[in-house]
Structure formats: structure tokens, C-alpha cells
């Protein structure tokens, strides 16, 4: 691939497109189209359908249950799955803990965890951020003290996405508080969320949803066999995880789908006495967004194409640019959908609807969801490495400052 797909890649894309079209359950597609966040059962159901076909672990090699795709094929998968619109496969399972175990795990860890992660029999969450350690992750304090065959873990994690659904948590802990460099005393542990001493407390975000949590560890016993890599070498694992292939971080497919949906809804809404879709100011705004998305798509092609050709297979620092621009555009699409809704985007009537299930619909759910999405995705420029951190990376690696 250069800036266009080869015949093989086009055929591959068509195969994926047909499969997703035929296999994605209608109820999930419709919920996603209206802008609802996928429920746990939606993600599980779709990931299992993909896994049966061997595609859920889309970036794993064949020997571990993945399809063994090239970087371009992986990108095509994401670009077809997101706009379906289908739930995305669990990033914690597939793009985080999977590749980590493939790279650093023992044979036993691979055997025990990988098939279950691919089939989402275990739901994973990520225990990295702490009240005093976000962008400055190395200042984390959650302590793990070796005691015979176990580590005893004490401390707190925060902003832990979907911890309330999780069966397992991969966690960075401080195993050597006396290490000279902060990065040297950290270990990477796999923690069973059912272990006594773990408390998960919800954080309800501004959109009203429960996605985030605080997780408290109080004398939590973790068997030493759940250590990944060597003791005190967890920072290397974390660096690998965070710097690992970042195809798809731009979430272009998602943005494209959201623009398409906003345009559909703009046929139903009005501005100045005619359909909103015919309003020149609205059309200009949509056109600008679509042009920006096209430009980003071409940049993504360049990055992925270069990645595929590079012998070392090292991630391109330009993926930081993809993250920055991709999240900015994703946020712009959420704002667009909210503006299309206009006054109808203010109510939270979906919530009321569930309580009054027998009554006729109060108002269009998509408009209420548009505002929730707008609010929730303010976080997009913060999570996955803040956009400020990404800019620091760019200044060092690309601009050489």
C-alpha cells in the first residue's frame, strides 16, 4: 500500500465489510447508530462473533489466536468495524494485555490468559493512573510487598475504566520503594478482581454515565506467578504497552460514522425555515470536517504504510499527530451532532424513558445521547496519553527540539 489500496487489500476490505454487515446484530447496530455507548453485553456479543471468525484479536499473530494481519490489514479492520457502527473490541484485552503477554508472558500465562482475553471470557481493566500519578505515571505509589509466594498490594488507582465489569486488572505497582530511579522500582502484576481487599467505587462522569472508577487495594494477596516480566522491571512492560503499535488511535472510522449520522439527522431538523442540511453555514461546517478527516486519513495511510515497510517495526512518532488530530476531530463530530439536535439535545429524557417504559417516547434519544457523547469525549484529548504529552513527543522526535 502507498496511498491507495492494492487489489488484495481492496478484496480484504470487501470481505470484512460483508462479514460485518451480515453478522453484526441489528439491535447492537441500531443502539450504536443512535449514539449509545455499547453495553458490556454488546461488546462481549460482538467480540465473540469476531473471535469465532478468528478476527477479534486483530493485532495478534496466528499462533496466539489472532489472524496474523499486516499493519495495513489491521487498520482496514478498524476502519470497517467502527463505521458499521459496531462496538470496538476491548482495547484492554486486545491491544494492551494481549500484546504484553505475547511479548513478556510466561508460557503458563499465555496459555491461561490469551484465549480467554480474545474471547472476552475475562474482562480486563487497566490499573495505571493514581490520584498522584497520571501523565507523570512513574510517580505511582500503590505498593506491592513480597511475602512468601505472594505480593501484598496496598494503595489506590483512579479513573479505572470499566473496573466494575472487570474480572482481571493489569496493574503497575511499586515493588521497590528504595530504587534510585523511580522507574526502576515498579512491577507489572495481574490481579484477580475477586481477590478479597479490592473495593471498586464508581465515578459518575459529567455525562451521567458510570464508566470510570476508583479502585482501592487493602492487603490484596497476589500470587507471584501473576508477575509479568521480572520483578522491578514493570516500567519496561508499561512502555511497551503504551508505545505499542498505535494504529487506530485516530478512531477515524468512528468520526466518519458520526459525521454521516449528523448529516442524516440534519435532514430532519430545521434552520431558517428549511432543512438544516440545506443551510449554507451548516454545509460549510460539515464540509470542513470531512476535508479534515480526509487529510487525516491520508496521514494515517502514510504512517501505517511507513510502519509496514520499516524493518524494525518501530512505531512512528507521527502516531502522536494522529492521536492529537484524531481526538480533536472526534470531539468536533460530537459537537456537530449536539448542535444538530439544538434544544432537543438539552434533555436527559433517555434516562426518564427507561423509568417510564410504558409511556410513548418523550423525545429523540439520539439528541440526548449526542450531548452525553460530547461531554464524555472531552476526555478523548486526555486519555491514551494527553494531547499535551503527545505534543511533547512530537517536539522531541519530529521537530528535534
Amino acid at each position, binding site marked *: 500500500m502507498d496511498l491507495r489500496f492494492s487489489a488484495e487489500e481492496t478484496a480484504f476490505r470487501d470481505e470484512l465489510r460483508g462479514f460485518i454487515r451480515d453478522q453484526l446484530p441489528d439491535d447492537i447496530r441500531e443502539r450504536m447508530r443512535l449514539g449509545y455507548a455499547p453495553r458490556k453485553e454488546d461488546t462481549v456479543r460482538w467480540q465473540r462473533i469476531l473471535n469465532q471468525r478468528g478476527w477479534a484479536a486483530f493485532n495478534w499473530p496466528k499462533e496466539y489466536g489472532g489472524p496474523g494481519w499486516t499493519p495495513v490489514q489491521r487498520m482496514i479492520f478498524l476502519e470497517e468495524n467502527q463505521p458499521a457502527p459496531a462496538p470496538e473490541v476491548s482495547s484492554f484485552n486486545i491491544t494492551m494485555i494481549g500484546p504484553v503477554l505475547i511479548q513478556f508472558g510466561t508460557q503458563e500465562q499465555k496459555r491461561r490468559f490469551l484465549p480467554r482475553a480474545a474471547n472476552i471470557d475475562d474482562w480486563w481493566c487497566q490499573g495505571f493512573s493514581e490520584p498522584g500519578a497520571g501523565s507523570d505515571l512513574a510517580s505511582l505509589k500503590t505498593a506491592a510487598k513480597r511475602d512468601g509466594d505472594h505480593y501484598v498490594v496496598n494503595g489506590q488507582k483512579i479513573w479505572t475504566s470499566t473496573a466494575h465489569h472487570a474480572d482481571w486488572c493489569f496493574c503497575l505497582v511499586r515493588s521497590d520503594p528504595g530504587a534510585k530511579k523511580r522507574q526502576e522500582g515498579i512491577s507489572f502484576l495481574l490481579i484477580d478482581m475477586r481477590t478479597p481487599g479490592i473495593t471498586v467505587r464508581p465515578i459518575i462522569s459529567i455525562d451521567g454515565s458510570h464508566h470510570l472508577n476508583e479502585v482501592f487495594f487493602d492487603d490484596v494477596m497476589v500470587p507471584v506467578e501473576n508477575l509479568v516480566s521480572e520483578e522491578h522491571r514493570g516500567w519496561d512492560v508499561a512502555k511497551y504497552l503504551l508505545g505499542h503499535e498505535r494504529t487506530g488511535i485516530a478512531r477515524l472510522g468512528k468520526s466518519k460514522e458520526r459525521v454521516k449520522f449528523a448529516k442524516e439527522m440534519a435532514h430532519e431538523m430545521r434552520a431558517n*425555515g428549511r432543512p*438544516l442540511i440545506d443551510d449554507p453555514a451548516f454545509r460549510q461546517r460539515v464540509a470542513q470536517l470531512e476535508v479534515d478527516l480526509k487529510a487525516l486519513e491520508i496521514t494515517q495511510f502514510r504512517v501505517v504504510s511507513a510502519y509496514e515497510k520499516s524493518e524494525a517495526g518501530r512505531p512512528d512518532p507521527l502516531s502522536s499527530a494522529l492521536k492529537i488530530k484524531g481526538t480533536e476531530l472526534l470531539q468536533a463530530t460530537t459537537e456537530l451532532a449536539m448542535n444538530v439536535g*439544538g*434544544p432537543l439535545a*438539552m434533555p436527559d429524557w433517555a434516562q*426518564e424513558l427507561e423509568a417510564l417504559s410504558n409511556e410513548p417516547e*418523550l423525545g429523540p434519544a439520539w439528541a440526548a445521547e449526542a450531548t452525553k457523547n460530547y*461531554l464524555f469525549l472531552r476526555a478523548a484529548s486526555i486519555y491514551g496519553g494527553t494531547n499535551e504529552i503527545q505534543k511533547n513527543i512530537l517536539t522531541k522526535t519530529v521537530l528535534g527540539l
Partner: protein
Amino acid sequence: MDFDLTEEQRLLRDSVDRLLADHYGFAQRRAYLAEPEGHSKAMWERYAELGLLGLPFAEEYSGFGGGAIETMLAMEAFGRALALEPYLATVVLSGTALRLAGSEAQQSAILPQIAEGRMTLAFAHGERQARYDLSDVLTTAKAGPQRGWVLDGAKSVVVHGDNADRLIVSARISGERDDPDGVSLFLVDANANGVARRSYPMRDGTRAAEISLSAVEVTADDLLGAPGKAFPVVERVVEAASPR
């Protein structure tokens, strides 16, 4: 040109700010949200005591004789506290409509009640299909018995419409959809026969309602201003509440 606040305005700002600092912490706000009205009746009484509910009204109507700057100072403080009470709906939106279109008799009947905290109102203008088109009014008002009117239609996202005592309802007495001419405003008792309200929270917890009007009878005295000539009032009411 002088952008400084007068001494009186500074005192007003300081007292509103202090009231909300003392009584509108996040935990307190949560408790107000859980009250049956979705806001605090006790706070509403405090606003009345402080004179906030009569800020833009003339003194003869138990008002403070202020204007947009005074209500701005109150609204800034309410915004900081994410206050839940129907100040915008009652004092700013409905109050402006009454000041601009209400007769002497209508104003003296209602404004003092607002100022003293005894009546809340909501401005029921927007409709489901209208988005931001202010003249897109499909609700109709037809001549009724004894020079009165009969209203039919539906109003959407009526902020604080869920428990307002009265509604100011826009309805068309003539003309087609989008025609600015032919729009009238009516005072409607929110508990009148034919008024049905479905309440829900907005994103920040503030309450709103979908309101349907089915053969709602009002008297000739409930019409605000000249028949069919209320559209400029609607525009000015919306301007009074818009941050631009």
C-alpha cells in the same frame, strides 16, 4: 463609556455571591436536586427576601427597578453555583414577556407575586419541530366562548415547565408556520383542563417538560398584548436570555 458597576450593583453582586457561597455547596445542591420540585423552595424564599425575584421589575410592582445588568449579576452567581431554581424561566423569560406585553392590570396582578416568591412561571414557546426558528409556531389559538381563546398544540423543552404555576404560551391565531405575523402570547394556568405535562431532567439536572395543550380555554384577559402581534416580544424575550 463606563463599564464599572455602581456602588449599589456591587453591593447586590456581593450579597448574591455570599448567599450562594453559604448555601450552594455541591452537597447542598445534591440535596436540592432530590427535593420534589428538583430545586430548593427555601432558596427561592431567600432570593425573594433579598429582592432578587423583583430585580427587573418597577418599584410599583414590588420590584427593585433594575435592568439587564442587575439580572446579569444574579445569573452569573447562579451559573457559578449551577443553581437549580426557576430564576431564568420566571424572572428573566416570563418577566420580560410580561413587562413588554402585559397590560397594567396583568403586570400588577402577577409581577408582585413573582417578586414576593409566591408564583413561578415558564415560557412555553419552543416546539419539537422548530429547533431555533422562533417563528415556527404550530400551536393554535382559536376564538372561544365569551371573547376567550382555545389553545391546541405541543410545547417542547419548556425549561422549568414541570412545576411552574403559570405558563406563557405562544400560539398562532393566523398565518402559516414560520409567519411572524399571527403569533400571540397567552397566560395559562398550568393546572388548567387540557394541559398535560411530562417532566424530565436536563443534562445538568435542571427540570424541563414536554407540554401538550388540548382544547385549553383561556379568557380574553389572558391574552398578552395585541392579538397576533407578539412575535417581536418573543424575539426580545429570547434575546434577554441569550449570551451574545
